[in-house]
């Protein structure tokens, strides 16, 4: 039960974070979305064995969190929820790829190297997406997607799903609370009640969602989610995208950690 209540607060926590005021928050939502998209595309374009070369990509999420004054704990907590999925995606590689490869002069199982690469790429991409949400808010992201000419039906789907998650969680919290108050000694939910409870939650959520939708229709909603007018992008926004884009491209073209390492060891020699 507390887990569900926490989940509701966690979801709303992102909206709260997005309302803060910082350099990152003041940037145009489109600039932040574009920078994140370029980041993700460049990140996944790396070779499957890439690990050391990915290190410079840690800088972007760290910068976003620091400049946006986003606390690390909520982001890391959500990242932990996603981590099992990322691990599942990469887990079969050590089993099927039995070959070896050399990294930093050491011989290593190539399957494990791919696994590590997938975990790094996945974690960085998810952390950056979470930071985009925490600094831009779902409304800002939706606005940017529409600017990028993403069909309104997809944007609407995204927005309504996001809104209805809290409706679903609230109904689930109420149902489970009323069960817990009458299931004195039993721990958790008995298996026999899973079906009826799930059905109840579904029916109540559908009713509630219908009322929310009716309220929207009565205020002129006709399929387009109007979020307001975004401010005009400034030169700062343009420079933000270009600056990060250049840095990502440079990090993709040159293995920066290796180059720096060689530079330093060369200087020592």
């Amino acid at each position: 039960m507390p887990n569900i209540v926490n989940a509701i607060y966690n979801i709303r926590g992102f909206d709260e974070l997005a309302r803060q005021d910082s350099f990152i928050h003041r940037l145009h939502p489109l600039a932040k979305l574009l920078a994140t998209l370029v980041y993700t595309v460049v990140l996944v374009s790396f070779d499957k064995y890439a690990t050391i070369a990915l290190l410079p990509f840690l800088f972007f999420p760290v910068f976003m969190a620091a400049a946006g004054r986003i606390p690390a704990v909520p982001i890391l907590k959500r990242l932990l929820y996603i981590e099992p999925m990322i691990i599942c995606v990469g887990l079969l590689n050590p089993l099927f790829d039995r070959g070896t490869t050399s990294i930093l002069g050491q011989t290593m199982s190539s399957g494990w190297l791919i696994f590590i690469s997938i975990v790094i790429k996945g974690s960085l991409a998810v952390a950056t997406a979470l930071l985009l949400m925490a600094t831009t808010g779902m409304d800002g992201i939706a606005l940017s997607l529409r600017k990028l000419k993403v069909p309104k039906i997809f944007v609407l789907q995204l927005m309504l799903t996001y809104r209805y998650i809290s409706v679903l969680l609230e109904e689930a919290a109420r149902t489970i609370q009323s069960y817990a108050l009458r299931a004195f000694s039993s721990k958790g939910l008995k298996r026999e009640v899973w079906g009826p409870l799930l059905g109840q939650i579904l029916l109540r959520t559908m009713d509630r969602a219908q009322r929310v939708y009716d309220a929207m229709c009565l205020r002129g909603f006709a399929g387009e989610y109007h979020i307001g007018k975004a401010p005009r992008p400034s030169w700062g926004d343009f420079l933000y995208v270009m600056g990060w884009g250049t840095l990502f491209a440079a990090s993709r073209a040159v293995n920066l950690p290796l180059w720096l390492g060689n530079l330093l060891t060369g200087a020592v020699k």
Partner: protein
Amino acid sequence: MSHHITEARDLFYVYPDGRQAVSGISFRIHHGESVGIIGANGAGKSTLLMLLTGILRPAKGEVVIGEVRLTKDTLNMIRQRLGMVFQNPDDQLFMTTVHDDVAFGPRNLMLDEAQVEERVISALEKVGISHLKDRAPYHLSAGEKRAAAIASVLSMSPDILILDEPTSSLDPKSRRRLMKILSGFEHTKIITSHDLDMVLELCQRVIVMKDGRAIADGPAKDILTNKTLMEEAGLEIPLSLHGCPVCGRSKSDAD
């Protein structure tokens, strides 16, 4: 002022499970009137409001708003004239800030952002919650949520305000504040409620419903003081009209 007339003509509605919720209701509400719709639980009040706003389609009969019949084609136009405040404000407030919730309607009317801002500020001022505009709706108290829900409807500049149980779950102070706000509006008001004292104070006319039918329609004071009628409808006369619980003297005696 015929454009503000709300008319129900022999309305019938049957739910898919066969329950007859509204059975032949007719009334005509004029511009600026405040009408209370009262009745016991399950009398059909909320269904009637949903029929008036076009959320439900009547099985028989018709709704006419300002001489325009409510049909699929006229629905959007008519909804611009009607503002409905739901019983549970959480159903109505779904944006991330009060400001965005109040702006939701005007933005759907495709007004430019300056006009939207003007309407939002004006609506928030009318209900006295301008200071809450940047707050998240779920952080507000029940009274503040109700005021925000009303503001979200006022920003559409409706001619007719429809309120479903506006004082439910409010503490006495918030209830009094809300009543003061509502009494200041010149809109046509249609209010369903079990708070009969509020109905007595805000409405000049009352329609009593029972089993989906209107069993009485007339001046609020006449209806709400009619003990036999109220008991027949499963209601009681308003508390403010009861005698003193200590000495038994009626209010009229004291006056």
